[in-house]
């Protein structure tokens, strides 16, 4: 194990035991690793350029910690990663939104093989805000959505990370989805909803 993975495991352990500061320290580590991996994914010659958040997280996990940790710890890790991904994406979405409005960034332009539709950033920002509103009255449902959608976790993993049963995840998700759908459907950015 690399020294970093020992640290990550330690921090994960602390966070599981309720130490919120450990999360602060975990985030940058996870973030760095995620980025490193994502770059590799895209730069390598892969036939499909579709990058699934879930693949990213799984691989990050493996690289940072290895397979020896019991799967419940892994679930907690995924939950952290889910939170990280969400935070990162929302920040990124906000910055993209800003740029649309003419923020000045001194950059040597990079190739972008992907053209990002205008809807994506706004959608994510709206989702984030909706989740935050939800979290005020019911943080667990917000966490469930975060795990499943941002972290690409399975029901079982989500259940383990949040210390509830998979049946609870299933049940709570129903109303969470319904509510979110209602909230997001009201927004202009989300017109293309089936």
């Amino acid at each position: 194990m690399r020294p970093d993975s020992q640290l990550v495991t330690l921090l994960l352990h602390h966070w599981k035991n309720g130490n919120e500061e450990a999360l602060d320290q975990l985030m940058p580590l996870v973030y760095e690793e995620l980025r490193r991996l994502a770059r590799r994914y895209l730069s390598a010659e892969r036939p499909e350029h579709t990058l699934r958040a879930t693949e990213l997280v799984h691989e990050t996990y493996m690289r940072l910690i290895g397979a020896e940790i019991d799967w419940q710890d892994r679930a907690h890790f995924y939950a952290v990663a889910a939170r990280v991904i969400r935070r990162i994406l929302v920040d990124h979405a906000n910055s993209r939104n800003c740029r649309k409005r003419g923020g000045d960034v001194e950059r040597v332009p990079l190739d972008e093989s992907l053209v990002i539709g205008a809807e994506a950033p706004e959608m994510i920002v709206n989702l984030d805000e909706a989740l935050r509103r939800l979290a005020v009255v019911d943080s667990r449902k917000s966490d469930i959505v975060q795990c499943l959608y941002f972290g690409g976790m399975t029901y079982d993993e989500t259940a383990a990370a949040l210390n509830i049963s998979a049946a609870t995840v299933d049940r709570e998700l129903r109303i969470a989805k319904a509510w979110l759908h209602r909230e997001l459907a009201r927004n202009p950015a989300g017109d293309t909803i089936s």
Partner: protein
Amino acid sequence: MRPPLEAGRWARLETLFYAAVDMDPAQRYAFLDERCGDDVTLRRDVESLLESSQKTLDFLHKPIRQLTESLVQQTEHAGERIGTYQLLKPLGEGGMGRVYLASRADELYRQEVAVKVLQPGSKPTASMLLRFSAERQILANLNHPNISRLLDGGITTDGSPYLVMEYVDGVPIDECCRENGLALNQRLKLFCTVCAAVAYAHKNLVVHRDIKPANILVTREGVPKLLDFGIAKLLDHESQAPTLTRTAERVLTPEYASPEQIRGDSVTTSTDVYGLGVLLYELLAGSRPFQLQTQSPLEAMRIICEESPDPPSKRIAADSGSSNSKLSLRVHEELDHIVLMAIRKEPERRYVSVAALARDVEAYLEGYPVQARSDTWSYRGGKFVLRHKIAVVAAAAAFLALVVFSIGMGWLAKRASRARVAAEQQQLTAEREAQFLASIFSAATPEQAKGQEVTARQLLDQGARRVDSELASEPEVQATMLDNLGHAYDRLGLYEQARPLLERAYEFRKHNLSAGSLDLAQSAQDLGNIYRLEAKYEKAEPLFRQALAIREKTPGEHGELLSDSLNSLGECLFLENRDAESEATLRRALALEGNRENVLAAVTRDYLARVVGRKGNFNEEVRLLEDAVRIDRQTEGAESPDFAISLHNLASAQMDLGDLLGGERTEREALKIRRRISGNDHPELAYPLNNLGWVLLAKGEWREAEPLLAEALAIRRKALGEKHPLTAASLNNWARVLEAKGDYAGAEKVFMQALGLIRASSGPQSWATAKILSNLGLLQLDQGDYAAAEGYARQALEMRIALGGDDNNNDVAASLIEVGVAREYQNDPASAEQLFRQVLGSRRKKFPAWHPDLLAAEIRLGEALLTEGRLSQAEPLLRDAVSGAHSAPFPLLPWQVAEAEVTYGVCLARLGRSAESKAALSSGVPALNTYPEAAMHRQIERLVHSVSQPPRT
């Protein structure tokens, strides 16, 4: 518009949703009719949710994916320009950011530099920003040929801070020595240069904290340069009280981490000595003292904190097949000693400074004798070296909720007396324990016998391993041994180790002994204690109940065992904030004990005192504690820990009663005894220190309070670690010192720290949390931010009410007053008046006329009425306050009396009774200078000023 989402409404929506979602339309319609009735908005809400429940959120996947991809592509900085620097290529990355090679881009000047940019691509956390700017500040002050120099710094256009540093084109020092085949002397000289750099940093009050080869590059010319002060820490002499850089303290490289870094103890210059020691080890032996690559993190931590490494010479001999055979293998024994001295586990046993380490290396180089000596702890047969940590230290862990910051609770340590319960039982256990330990001891390995330190911990660990392997076929004996080991760990305060053993013993006994077995009861009791100490009350309580039930049913004289269980249960209930049940349980114990005056009886009284104290029944509290004190003095003697504890508890109760000066006296005595019996390092000392500190703060004597509270905090940090709730308590008190000094920013920071720690351990709601919130409110008052003060005061109030506090509860009353004061200062004396009246009403019922708390209520109300100009109502109130103050059965604090007199004096002046006014004012005003609350002090002064201006003619 839909109604905003709010908890109650959501809960109703949820219930209706789940019930209705699987119904068919007709059923659903009827159901909603019945449940929603006239509430049209509710019905519409549910219906729209039900409609949406058919839809999916799959449409989210695409945007998430797209954003991820775009993110990944845009966060590469290379090729960018930052300020006048053009980034060329990345040099490396770490947790905080990335370092790029860059060149200065204007035509005048070509220079290669290293640019470190904080975490690109995502918003940096506050702690990262703090660290980054701390690094910048630190580097700016350091000007040394062997430390990489800071050239510039700033913020990029997308808001990331960056540093520009001297670019060091070199290789890590270990590689340098290896690749160039440097001889021993050359390595040592290089090492001394590095030491000089570190010593310089120390002189500038900076500890590097991350010394390792990767951070020391050697240039082509052979000049070593120290890099990456990323987690360096500024040692500020000014604020000796440790400020929190917890988030900045991170163990980056486990193999180089010192034991104190791993444990989270305070880090000092000695930590760098350790790092240099490991570096020297590596330069001499070619490998690191500890091989941690394959270890699990917890194992790695343990190894660093406990295991002794091979001396370098031995490691070289073992590795003699490696490339280091080029190196002169004659690493003299003295170098061994130097290295080992630098990497001793205890900071105070290492070299006293980096300079001392360097001096010894130089002495060696020049052939002079070195200071370091070999470390001999020889083994005396029959005894082992016990690292003695009294169980009480960790015992305190459990009683988070009890931590009354301004009044410490030492009775937590009553846990120690538990060990004396059921003397016969304990005797047997102790014997068996001793037997088992003795058997382990005698099988100790030869290495351990030969001069290395042996800790009780090591022996216990061995024992734990042997119990499994040797006793697997004798489960009953195994259970007993598990129990013993569990106890032994418990005594050492190692609850994490104790718990699994006791759990196993318990499980075994549960399944194999009869349900009414006393052994089972004992196991349940022991395990319950561990859970309680770990604050897992929901697990502890059923175990205590089980033990109690068994003991109740057992015929014969088991008075003591029953008391023990009742005490534990009562305590546990109190900690769960179930005061009524707790009181009932403890009173039952009290009744059982009758007139017996033994340790158990004292313990019961201690606990019960706390329960009734929380109800506000201070008289009974003091009585119970006086009894406890008396019993302890009789049974344990005046130099006993139990007596010191009881004295301390009594002092607390006196303070509750309003007799601060009396409490101060008692507490000083408790402190004296405690110092005598436990010395100056003992964690127990923290309780009386805290109390005394509190009283002195209340007296307005913060200068006297300061060293006491600093000492308490230091003790707790050392013994309990940074995150412990009691450390948080001490932090809270320390913040109050800072506040008294006028360092408001500092105080706020420390309060927040304490708040975070308490929340982490007790959850979002607890009396302790409320206390800190309340303190934060008072701090805002001092700073003049009345709206913020009110915010905090209200939070504290709500929390206290939610925890079950009612009008009678003094904390609730205090909150009401705080809110009132905040409102008054925001020019709303009417609201203030209402609140003060409420408090006055309940306090009048509770307190006698002289009690400082009642006086305070009267004075606050009087002040508010004064402000509103209702002099005729204010006057009798304030007059009562003055006469009350003068009629106390014990002397009150000077400012408490003065406050009444002065406010009354102002009222009299406004009523035109100037002679009386003058008398009251001249008596009171001088004594106000010790008034501890700055904001209220200002208010009073304003009032005084308003009547001492001569009228304009």
